[in-house]
């Protein structure tokens, strides 16, 4: 079986763990999938993480031309940094400004830019987030410790079709002397979804 250590005896785990293992074994036996194919998928997913998003943001903060590209053709911008989205879905980046703060949600199913950022956090997939983010985005952000300043509009993007969204947060003040790597470290996964901002 691919890439796993046997589930520990006595550890409570979902009955679906055995089911997916059974499906895997049967698909291999019937020649529907091969072990390398599954292993490649596992490896691919492991390379997807919020640090990809952080790199895109840090580059955009340092380079206006790159920011323009990120906002007009995000997939091309990702490719330029060696991040291959591979997935056919559209990928759109929305920019926070002094007047506007963006929040991303998928009420229908938890769509997320996985091909860039990897797996979404559990809270993003929760019924509570999916229900409340569209109706009371400001209350949700308050739970994440963030309140937009007076006069800032909140724009919620519900990814209802095959578009995946990511937020381009504003560059924090006092970071003028930082290099790109340092800047990337400021960019949290949560700020890419829009529930709060980099500090």
């Amino acid at each position: 079986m691919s890439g796993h250590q046997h589930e520990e005896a006595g550890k409570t785990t979902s009955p679906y763990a055995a089911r997916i293992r059974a499906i895997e074994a049967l698909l291999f036996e019937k020649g529907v999938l091969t072990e390398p194919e599954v292993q490649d998928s596992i490896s691919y997913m492991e390379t997807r993480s919020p640090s990809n998003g952080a790199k895109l943001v840090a580059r955009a903060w340092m380079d206006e031309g790159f920011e323009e590209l990120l906002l007009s053709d995000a997939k091309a911008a990702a490719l330029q940094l060696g991040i291959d989205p591979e997935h056919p879905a559209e990928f759109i980046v929305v920019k926070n400004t002094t007047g506007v703060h963006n929040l991303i949600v998928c009420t229908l199913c938890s769509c997320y830019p996985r091909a860039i950022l990897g797996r979404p956090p559990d809270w993003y997939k929760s019924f509570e987030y999916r229900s409340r983010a569209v109706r009371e985005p400001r209350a949700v952000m308050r739970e994440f410790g963030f309140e937009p300043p007076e006069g800032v509009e909140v724009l919620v993007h519900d990814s209802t079709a095959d578009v995946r969204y990511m937020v381009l947060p504003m560059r924090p003040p006092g970071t003028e002397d930082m290099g790109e790597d340092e800047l990337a470290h400021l960019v949290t996964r949560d700020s890419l979804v829009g529930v709060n901002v980099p500090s």
Partner: protein
Amino acid sequence: MTFEPGDRVKVLLSEKPGHVRIPGYLKGKAGWIESLVGEFPNPEELAYGHSGLPVRPLYKVGFRQADLWDDYEGPAEDYLYADVYEHWLEPGEGGPT
């Protein structure tokens, strides 16, 4: 395509069964076309293994939060955007925004 950015639109109230890509909370609501995302096969048909053709326009549609929720807590300029296929939209009232 039927709509241009700025056009006022309304989401249909249809109770179409099966897999639909329109959230319940948007049905019957009025908004505007923000932009055209592109043209794609219909996911509601793809979901059942059909071709989903012909491709149809997918629009980014904007709504005022105050128009979506009676008890919305926030300023009038808070908006919500959703990506909506043309077959879920009809022309809205009033001229372009």
